[in-house]
């Protein structure tokens, strides 16, 4: 390749710099569009690394257990007995720490009418690193001096959301009062999940956890010298499965036998969800980021195409002068490179700026003791690469097109104008009102179909991105509404009361609740965690046994409510079964020595519409496999006439063995909370998209108006008033805006449907989500697509009023 002379390089550099300056507003707009795309990409995808690093640091900080030995609910054993299990096993030397605990479900009452379910964790409070330790965020840690005294630390997120003071007094079930000395966080409770307390979707605000010394808890729950839980840490590289097997053998060999379950760190809901969600969430954020990036790319393509098209005549002059193709391509490509550099620089700023609210969402939604949110150089480099390649590619295509035009065409004056009538002849067949020139807007749209299509597609790209992103919010909202409607369609004032163990349906506990003056009615029931399997598919279920006299029953979308399992439509779909089909259900079964897990084939009797697939129901006859006939671990309580739900909940606190009492609404509120992280991030993405859409719509229209400047000058020269010209331009752009909006809304809805059918089921498999677009979103899109675009010409009023008509009418230069 021959050497490129410096004079030419300098000339081209000067020339493209002048191009940039001449169109600085548009160039800035394109750069900002690219920046929003790449910045969102970098911002959203950078969160995965943040979460992984923060999780690693937080779980390591508090010596999260590797293995946990838990006795069945309601069972305890003598203090020291669980710890002794570790002594005789072959891999005892692999155990680096143990902590014997008493973990008891309870109700927590406090100031300002606080009354929530929760649990109290009796643990080792001696100084030094402890397995599943507690990181103090406010107040002080428990010390040896607190052993046996009514002092406790309250879980930090719960305390923050309920605005509990560092020192306060809380009352737990049974009436024991505890002095709160500080707020803290522990690995198992970094996030609260359905497994805790048996009630799904409870948020950090409505599920409290108290940490106290083992002996304090033993006193508070009247279980002196008892424990029910052992947590262990192992040295790095230890064979966790081998230690678990040996512990199991020790448990089986114990006399009297201990029916305990052994779980690993991976079984901790908070741990599993915090790590597993990263990958799933990343997929969703990648889709959203690519969506925004795609919208930005299309917009950049659209805008740069217009710029290069405007240079086509100059490219033609270059061709006439015999300039080689590659030389002619250098100038627009240099222009693209400059826009790209500007876009990348701005993109880094946008990415950093987006990171601020994102960090806020995560810190709020996923409270960890350590949050690491450094700049993710790798993701930013990826985004910067995309940000650079995007405008370059966007310029390359129109340049390639421009260079393929025969020079005689490119050089022609008014080459951008339609050569023929486009689709305008169609109008001859449609009678239109008004004078001839009033038909110009519609004629213009049809006369230059390619230009109209480019403008409409630019607007459509923005609307599609907006509709898809905001549509996600609509979709999540509608899904929660469906769940709420299903759970509250009858007896909306009922309370779900969870007991701390299985009680006879005619026993003291049920009778005590029924006898309370605040209670209008009680229906004893069962709620058991189970796993359904069919055709290689697995779905976790919470099976509720609904007695004949229940005040609430699921709505049926197919089948009947008796004679088998009533599954959620989504669960049936995921298991690949329908009404009449059979699934294998792994469930607890009561035996003489306690609960054991068994597998029972169950017929699917019916389907219900709750989008939360975990909800499953059985009639008492079909529930015989549980072996719990005549027992209840859940009560459905209807308040007495004129008594509010809070009064009933408060009264229930005094009843022994009541673990929690929640209104039916609390469950749906919890569901909403569980989706807050998505909604929070999507709101940020939607805001960016809205900005992007406004920018694209306005710029696309501005360019279209610029391209009509000679026509406007002609109209003004013929004496049409500025307002008439503006009116016609507004009508023209509004027509194109309407077309773009229709394409954008349809495209957005199609994209939303596609994503909810392909990506969302992987990210949120527990929820049956179907695409929904709210009227508000459609109105927003229409407003943006038509109004913004129609208003854009009005901003050119000043320019139009001051137009130098002779110059505009002259053949350029």
């Amino acid at each position: 390749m021959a050497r490129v002379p410096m004079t030419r390089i300098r000339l081209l550099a000067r020339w493209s710099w002048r191009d940039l300056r001449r169109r600085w507003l548009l160039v800035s707009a394109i750069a900002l569009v690219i920046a929003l795309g790449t910045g969102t990409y970098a911002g959203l995808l950078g969160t995965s690394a943040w979460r992984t690093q923060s999780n690693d640091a937080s779980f390591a900080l508090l010596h999260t257990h590797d293995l946990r030995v838990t006795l069945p609910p309601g069972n305890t054993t003598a203090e020291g007995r669980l710890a002794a299990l570790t002594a005789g096993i072959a891999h005892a030397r692999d155990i680096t720490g143990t902590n014997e605990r008493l973990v008891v479900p309870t109700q927590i009452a406090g100031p300002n009418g606080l009354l929530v379910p929760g649990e109290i964790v009796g643990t080792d409070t001696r100084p030094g690193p402890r397995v599943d330790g507690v990181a103090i965020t406010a107040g002080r840690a428990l010390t040896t001096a607190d052993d046996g005294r009514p002092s406790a630390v309250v879980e930090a997120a719960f305390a923050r959301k309920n605005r509990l003071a560092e020192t306060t007094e809380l009352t737990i079930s049974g009436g024991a009062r505890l002095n709160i000395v500080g707020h803290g966080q522990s690995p198992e409770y970094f996030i609260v999940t359905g497994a805790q307390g048996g009630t799904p979707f409870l948020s950090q605000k409505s599920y409290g956890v108290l940490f106290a010394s083992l002996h304090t808890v033993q006193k508070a729950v009247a279980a002196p010298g008892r424990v029910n839980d052992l947590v262990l840490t192992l040295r790095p590289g230890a064979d966790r499965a081998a230690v678990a097997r040996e512990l199991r053998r020790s448990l089986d060999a114990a006399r009297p036998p201990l029916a305990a379950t052994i779980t690993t760190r991976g079984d901790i809901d908070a741990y599993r969800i915090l790590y597993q969600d990263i990958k799933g969430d990343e997929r969703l954020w990648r889709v959203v980021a690519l969506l925004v990036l795609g919208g930005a790319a299309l917009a950049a393509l659209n805008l740069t195409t217009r710029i290069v098209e405007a240079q086509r005549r100059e490219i033609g002059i270059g061709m006439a002068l015999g300039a080689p193709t590659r030389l002619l391509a250098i100038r627009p490509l240099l222009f693209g490179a400059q826009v790209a550099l500007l876009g990348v620089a701005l993109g880094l700023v946008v990415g950093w700026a987006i990171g601020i609210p994102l960090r806020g969402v995560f810190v709020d939604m996923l409270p960890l003791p350590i949050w690491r949110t450094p700049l993710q150089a790798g993701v930013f480099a990826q985004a910067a690469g995309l940000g650079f390649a995007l405008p370059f590619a966007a310029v390359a295509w129109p340049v390639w097109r421009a260079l393929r035009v025969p020079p005689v065409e490119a050089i022609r004056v008014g080459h951008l104008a339609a050569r023929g009538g486009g689709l305008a002849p169609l109008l001859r067949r449609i009678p239109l009102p008004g004078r001839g020139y009033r038909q110009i807007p519609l004629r213009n749209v049809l006369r230059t179909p390619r230009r109209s299509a480019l403008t409409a597609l630019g607007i459509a790209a923005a609307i599609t991105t907006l509709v898809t992103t905001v549509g996600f919010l609509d979709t999540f909202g509608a899904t929660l509404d469906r769940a709420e409607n299903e759970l509250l369609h009858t007896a909306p004032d009922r309370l779900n009361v969870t007991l701390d163990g299985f009680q006879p349906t005619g026993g003291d506990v049920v009778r005590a609740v029924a006898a309370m003056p605040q209670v209008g009615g009680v229906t004893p029931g069962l709620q058991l965690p189970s796993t359904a399997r069919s055709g290689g598919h697995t779905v976790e279920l919470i099976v509720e046994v609904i007695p004949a006299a229940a005040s609430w029953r699921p709505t049926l979308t197919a089948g009947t409510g008796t004679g088998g399992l009533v599954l959620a439509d989504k669960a049936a779909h995921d298991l690949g079964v329908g009404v009449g089909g059979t699934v294998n259900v792994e469930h607890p079964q009561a035996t003489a020595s306690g609960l054991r897990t068994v597998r029972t084939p169950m017929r699917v009797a019916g389907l219900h519409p709750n989008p939360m697939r975990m909800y499953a129901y059985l009639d008492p006859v079909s529930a015989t496999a549980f072996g719990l006939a005549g027992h209840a671990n859940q009560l459905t309580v209807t308040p007495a006439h004129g008594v509010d739900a809070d009064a009933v909940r408060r009264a229930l606190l005094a009843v022994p063995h009541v673990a929690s009492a929640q209104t039916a609404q609390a469950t749906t509120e919890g569901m909403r909370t569980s989706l807050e992280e998505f909604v929070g991030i999507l709101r940020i993405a939607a805001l960016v998209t809205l900005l992007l859409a406004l920018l694209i719509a306005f710029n696309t229209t501005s360019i279209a108006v610029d391209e009509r400047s000679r026509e406007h000058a002609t109209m003004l020269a013929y004496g049409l008033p500025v307002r008439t010209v503006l009116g016609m331009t507004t009508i023209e752009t509004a027509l194109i805006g309407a077309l773009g909006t229709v394409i954008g809304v349809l495209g957005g809805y199609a994209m939303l449907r596609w994503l909810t059918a392909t990506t969302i089921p992987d990210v949120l498999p527990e929820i049956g989500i179907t695409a929904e677009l709210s009227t508000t979103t459609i109105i927003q899109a229409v407003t943006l697509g038509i109004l913004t675009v129609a208003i854009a010409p009005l901003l050119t009023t000043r320019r139009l009023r001051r137009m130098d008509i002779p110059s505009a009418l002259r053949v350029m230069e």
Partner: protein
Amino acid sequence: MVDTTREFRPPVDARLGAEGTRIDLDDVCRYFPVGGTVVKALDEVNLHVDEAAFVVVLGASGSGKTTLLNIIGSLDAPTSGTVRLAGVELTAASRAERTRIRRRTVSFIFQSFNLFPGLTAGENVQFGADVAGRAHPVRVAGEMLERVGLGGRVDHFAHQLSGGEQQRVAIARALATGNPILLADEPTGELDFRTGVQILELLREQAAAGKTVIVVTHNREISRVADRVIELSSGHIVADGPPVGGRAPIADLRW
């Protein structure tokens, strides 16, 4: 990249060989389909220019004269017939060869000037010299602008120049290429009489210096100063020869 090491050349490129500036059009037709009909812009045109001269192609609007110029300059291709320029058969030439012809053999001057609005007068001329592979394009640009009387407007942009000045810059750009054939499409079409005469003087000087200058115009008066006048009507050559009454001096022109 293009070869940029070429030194300043004599007015007629010696490398063009015996064929020099020879232009041959045989049975050239150029048809444009418009709607359901075909417009015959050029029909069976035969034209041969074998020596440096000032040639005027005369015709009314729509007679086909601009089409003829575009075909000679390889901006457009005929529907049928053959075109040979400086020994190269354009009708069989590749896109790259046609580009090379435009770069090394012909130079265009347009009615609407077609200066690059983003470049100064000096840079516009420099562009012409640079593309043609002239050494020291900045110096050449300065010399050419001096020659057309615009030495003091080197740093002015196109919109800061009058129409006549813009056309002179366009001529300077064409001259800066050093190419042996100048093709001018209505070069005085947008200019007043006095400026038009100045432009014609410049073009005549080029012919006198050994270049072939082909000027397309509808202005019959201009044909009086030509060495050869080719008259077109409805796509056909209807007259070809010296001006009636012999060549007149430019000072005698009136329009």
